């Protein structure tokens, strides 16, 4: 049981604010990713929620109650750090049971709960190991177990997978997702990896330069970015403008429906993802002609730069038959074009 609400937070270390005007709600049982490039202020936000940093403005509410006057040890949130930070003087079980011991539970009860959480996190049988006698992935799981065993209202995870190698990372993503689904603990998960955020969370909140730019489901952020910066963060490369007429955006690449864009005289921007651009050898219905200027083989797909009258277009295609200098037809399927609200 726990929901988290951040209202108008301003956070910083020196004279300059690092995070400004941040408002965000995480619902009870929800897994929310806080996504952003390195230095965007993600850790700063988690530290403010955990109570290590006092906001300069705004409030943090847990279950509807402001917690700004409570120190970290009196808040119903537990933070898991980027490094596992296990206590080197305790064994694995001692680490996981640490918080329960601090609450004064009796040893039998502690053992029962620690065993249960070790089963859940796949650490069964490792309780007596020293912390340097388990692998990096197991250390991260122990750090997670140490937090989960306290049944926090809100769990804060600060890039807990960033120190793991690619394979282990993928396993741990699925693992954390599964644990979250089973325990239904309200989770704010910080990552700089868009794939990780999209695959793991119910909702994603994108932070750029200390400001929240868009919050929504993974599909909303990916397919309906709020502005060109958000689109760029998720790999958007094609941006073009046009003129609004009767709910249609008229552009050099065709006319596209834009129901939620107002006809206010400005020239709205539109975008299409590189993998949604269709290519054909011959001109056809709704196509524009262009010339390939550059290609780059990327394994599963080939990235192609095409000069058209309306500007440079980047396409990502599974076909590898295109070469520089070739002329081809480019089609923007109308349902794949995203017109930004002006």
């Amino acid at each position, binding site marked *: 049981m726990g929901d988290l609400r951040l209202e108008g937070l301003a956070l910083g270390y020196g004279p300059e604010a690092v995070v400004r005007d941040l408002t965000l709600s995480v619902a009870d049982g929800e897994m929310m990713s806080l996504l952003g490039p390195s230095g965007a202020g993600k850790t700063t936000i988690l530290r403010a929620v955990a109570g*290590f940093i006092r906001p300069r403005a705004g409030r943090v509410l847990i279950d509807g109650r402001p917690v700004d006057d409570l120190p970290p040890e009196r808040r119903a949130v537990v933070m898991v750090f980027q490094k596992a930070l296990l206590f*080197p003087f305790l064994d694995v079980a001692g680490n996981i049971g640490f918080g329960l011991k601090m609450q004064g539970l009796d040893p039998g009860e502690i053992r029962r709960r620690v065993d249960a959480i070790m089963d859940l996190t796949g650490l069964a049988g490792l309780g007596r190991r020293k*912390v340097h006698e388990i692998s990096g992935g197991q250390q991260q799981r122990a750090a997670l177990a140490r937090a989960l065993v*306290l049944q926090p209202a809100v769990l804060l995870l600060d890039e807990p997978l960033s120190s793991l190698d690619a394979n282990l990372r993928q396993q741990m993503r699925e693992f954390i997702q599964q644990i979250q689904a089973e325990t239904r603990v309200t989770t704010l998960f910080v990552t700089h990896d868009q794939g990780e955020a999209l695959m793991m969370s119910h909702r994603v909140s994108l932070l750029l330069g200390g400001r929240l730019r868009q919050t929504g489901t993974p599909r909303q952020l990916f397919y309906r970015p709020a502005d060109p910066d958000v689109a760029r963060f998720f790999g958007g490369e094609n941006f073009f403008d046009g003129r609004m007429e009767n709910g249609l955006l008229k552009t050099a690449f065709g006319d596209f429906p834009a129901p939620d864009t107002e006809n206010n005289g400005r020239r709205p921007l539109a975008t299409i993802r590189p993998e949604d651009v269709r290519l054909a050898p011959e001109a056809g219905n709704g196509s524009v002609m262009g010339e390939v200027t550059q290609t780059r083989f990327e394994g599963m797909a080939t990235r192609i730069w095409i000069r058209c009258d309306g500007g440079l277009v980047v396409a990502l295609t599974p076909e590898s038959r295109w070469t520089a200098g070739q002329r081809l037809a480019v089609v923007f399927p109308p349902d794949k074009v995203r017109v930004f609200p002006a």
Partner: protein
Amino acid sequence: MVSGQIGGRDARTRAARWDLCLAGLLAPALAVMLLLFGGGLTLGGLQALGYLPGAGMTELTAAHFTRVLQDPDFLTSLGLTLHIALTSTVIAAVVSVALALALTRWSIRSRLVHFVLQVPLTVPHLVVAVSMLFLLAPAGLAARLAAALGLIASPGEFPLLVNDRGSIGILLVYIWKEIPFIALMVLSVLQNAGGELIEVGRTLKAGPWQRFRFILLPVIAPSLAAACLIVFAFTFGAFEVPWLLGRTYPMSLPVRGYKSYADVDLAARPEGIAIGLIIALVVMGAVALAVWLNRLAGSREAIR
């Protein structure tokens, strides 16, 4: 995984080769030290066993050791020495931990503080002892100052703090000297590891006292214990401070050993050396333990 093992083995051979290299470079110095130190100990051992041809004693016997150990005065001296070493070490340790915590707590990294902290490290014990004598003696600076301030009626009323029953003068010298040593050791551990683990403790709902008891103390324990053992070993075996600031009876073990050794009666010499060897044994034991604890502290840091 595999590459990790290879890397590990590689690193280990490299480390071994490096050790060997180092040993080669140090060999001449080590040889001299072994000869002087080991030779001295052996000669001393022989003399303590009663082999003193110059004085006509050639029979090897453990009698001197037995005599030393059975002498009730030896136990009194041992008691006094332990009192001096343990009391000064414990007080210095408590003050040092408090000091180190305060410095990290208020994140004081000022150069001045660290400089001031290092000053006592550079002043020889003898100098401190002599200063203490000037300061605390019955007609010393402190006594006159107290009298001038009207705290006491005359300098003669000043409490006896040197050559006193409680060895307070000796303790003060040692405590003043050892606090920076222990505090700097503890400080370096705290600055390396303390902060992050304390934050973990806070988010796991440990209160201030619990964080001290269950995180800080275990974190600093190996280094603190190692520092204390070294300090204990030193104060247990050092001669000059109790010699200057102690009473004529009972004497601390090192003073007693020296007195017997330097006695005009050559027959007292084996006893003096026997005491010296007993001290050496205690000191080496403490240092060995300290080295082991220091390794433990080091291996812990490697985990993080």
